[in-house]
């Protein structure tokens, strides 16, 4: 066998036969070349848009919120007056009503997060490590599917399920299980359902990153499956699970729609904000209340930062 050592396209008289034209060379492009020579210009060009977006939309909005919280409302005219005061913030922090609502909101967010973590780990394990390649795709789509439906539709669907005479009561009756009705439990159930995909996806990604040979090595060294799960899988998965909890915890913490639809009289921080923006027409107080979940989330992020979970988002 002999190799044809002639370069394609270098044959005499290029271009007459099909497939023998010379390979095109890069054209002179002074702007690309300039960017290539000056890294600082390149960096500036790349960062202008995202930096502008970050400052304008995110930091400016947060600053406005903080400033508004320090203003007050003229009770007589109902107009925001720009007198500086800490009264709103102090009331949110000291009034027992708001303290209870804050604690309840944290409790609901924690319960939702724990329920989702417990459900998501086996599902993610099944998708990533047990199912065949074909079924993996189908199952990931099945997990994502509920995200395509409107949040409101899902919340109202649960309202029907939880209603007296609804699906849950009908199914639970033979077992002696009563529907929780419209209550705090209903809020937890509904939120756990709605945010579940946000927990499954990062954990699934985490499982995918664990090579099968680690599981085989563990089994090879004498560990039964549950020990392998506890000593090998879970420690490696901790950052992924925390990444999932950041989603479910923060999303639950700020929720107000589900609480209104299935919560009955259950008040959460979100519903307080909503009520103050709308009915009570007290924007400064709403801003002060909304600072609470922001602070909680910042504390949470600060605590989990050291686990490396933020690299998994």
């Amino acid at each position, binding site marked *: 066998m002999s190799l044809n050592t002639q370069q394609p396209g270098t044959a005499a008289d290029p271009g007459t036969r099909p497939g023998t034209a010379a390979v095109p060379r890069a054209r002179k492009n002074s702007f690309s070349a300039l960017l290539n020579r000056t890294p600082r210009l390149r960096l500036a060009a790349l960062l202008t848009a995202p930096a502008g977006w970050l400052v304008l939309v995110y930091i400016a909005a947060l600053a406005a919120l903080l400033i508004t919280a320090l203003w007050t409302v003229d009770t007589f005219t109902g107009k925001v007056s720009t007198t500086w005061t800490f009264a709103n913030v102090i009331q949110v922090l000291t009034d027992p009503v708001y303290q209870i609502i804050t604690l309840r909101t944290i409790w609901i967010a924690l319960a939702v997060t724990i329920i989702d973590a417990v459900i998501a780990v086996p599902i993610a394990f099944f998708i990533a490590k047990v199912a065949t390649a074909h079924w993996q795709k189908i199952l990931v789509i099945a997990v994502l599917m509920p995200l395509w439906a409107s949040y409101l539709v899902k919340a109202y669907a649960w309202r029907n399920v939880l209603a007296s005479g609804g699906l849950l009561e009908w199914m639970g009756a033979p077992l002696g299980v009563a529907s929780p009705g419209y209550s705090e439990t209903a809020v937890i159930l509904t939120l756990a359902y709605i945010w579940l995909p946000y927990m499954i996806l990062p954990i699934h990604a985490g499982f995918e990153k664990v090579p099968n040979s*680690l599981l*085989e*090595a563990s089994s090879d*060294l004498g*560990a039964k499956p549950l020990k392998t799960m506890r*000593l090998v899988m879970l420690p490696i998965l901790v950052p992924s699970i925390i990444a999932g909890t950041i989603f479910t915890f923060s999303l639950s913490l700020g929720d107000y729609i589900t609480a209104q639809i299935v919560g009955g009289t259950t008040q959460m921080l979100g519903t307080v904000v909503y009520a103050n923006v709308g009915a009570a027409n007290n924007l400064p107080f709403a801003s002060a209340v909304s600072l609470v979940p922001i602070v909680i989330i910042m504390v949470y992020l600060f605590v989990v930062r050291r686990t490396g979970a933020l690299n998994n988002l």
Partner: protein
Amino acid sequence: MSQTTLSGVRETTAEVPAIRLRNLTKTFGSKGFNETRAVDGVDLDIRQGEFFSMLGPSGSGKTTVLRLIAGFELPTSGTIELEGADVSGKAPFQRDVNTVFQDYALFPHMSLVDNVAYGLRVRGMKKAERRERAIESLERVQLGKFMQRRPSQLSGGQRQRVALARALVVEPKVLLLDEPLGALDLKLRQQMQIELKELQRSLGITFIFVTHDQEEALTMSDRIGVFNNGKLAQIGTAHEIYQRPTGAFVANFVGTSNLFGPDIAASLYQRGGQFVVRPERLTLDWTASTAKHDGAASLRGTVTSLVYVGHATQVRVALEGGPAVVVLVGSDLPDEASVVGKTVSVSWLDRDAVWLPDGN
């Protein structure tokens, strides 16, 4: 036979093979659709304390056999016996064999000492003792001073040693090694080959070593099993495999072989069949004079290319009316520029011709 003596000590005599495979078959895919027979009816006895290599090209089934012995795959049919006891359907954690993985499979979240102690931990050994044994095992592979490090802080060769220490600390009956030296550079690989062989000799444990590198297999093994298409092509010592290959596949896969067809056999030796001659057994005559003394054969040919391999030069010669052969020339070549295209003669002693059995 394995038996429990009166003193309660389990004694094993040398007659029972460490591993016995009988008609072992493994198919992947669904029947009749995309079914592949990765392992096809393998019968194999691996003796106690033996360094056995499974050699073959990619996809020849050698790694699948190893995974079947370890228990990561279950056989479609056939049996696996470990020291006389049938383990065919048992889970990996129920088998007294341990594996050194190709990618080492060290636990990234544990220090070296925790990695090595893992096997003892899951078997319920006390912390102080398993730590002591793990350190001892790490010191045996010269990594005692790194015991608090994470696997990611080690080089490839060091990880390989940790994987070895981790598998050996639980005192397996058989150690399985799945191309463990594949990712190492040549110098390190040669050093590890010697160390592995010495380790195996001093421990007396049966080693089953999977490799696609024929030189590695020849250097280290007591016996070699050559795999091709899920079947065992030949089992024998390195010497037997190299000097007396039983088929064209083995002759070509293990070292370079020059295969002569039936027509040349008929014209030179007046008999049928094929034979092979190793490159180092061929001699080259630059003056193209065909030696015709007794017990030697000779053919003329044209030099087509040269490959310099350091200690010698491989000269490729297209024989007249025969195959292209490779001749290993140790001495200096005459006037290198003019060698290609030159007419030469290639000769060999009749006793260096290895006849292949018919039908291969």
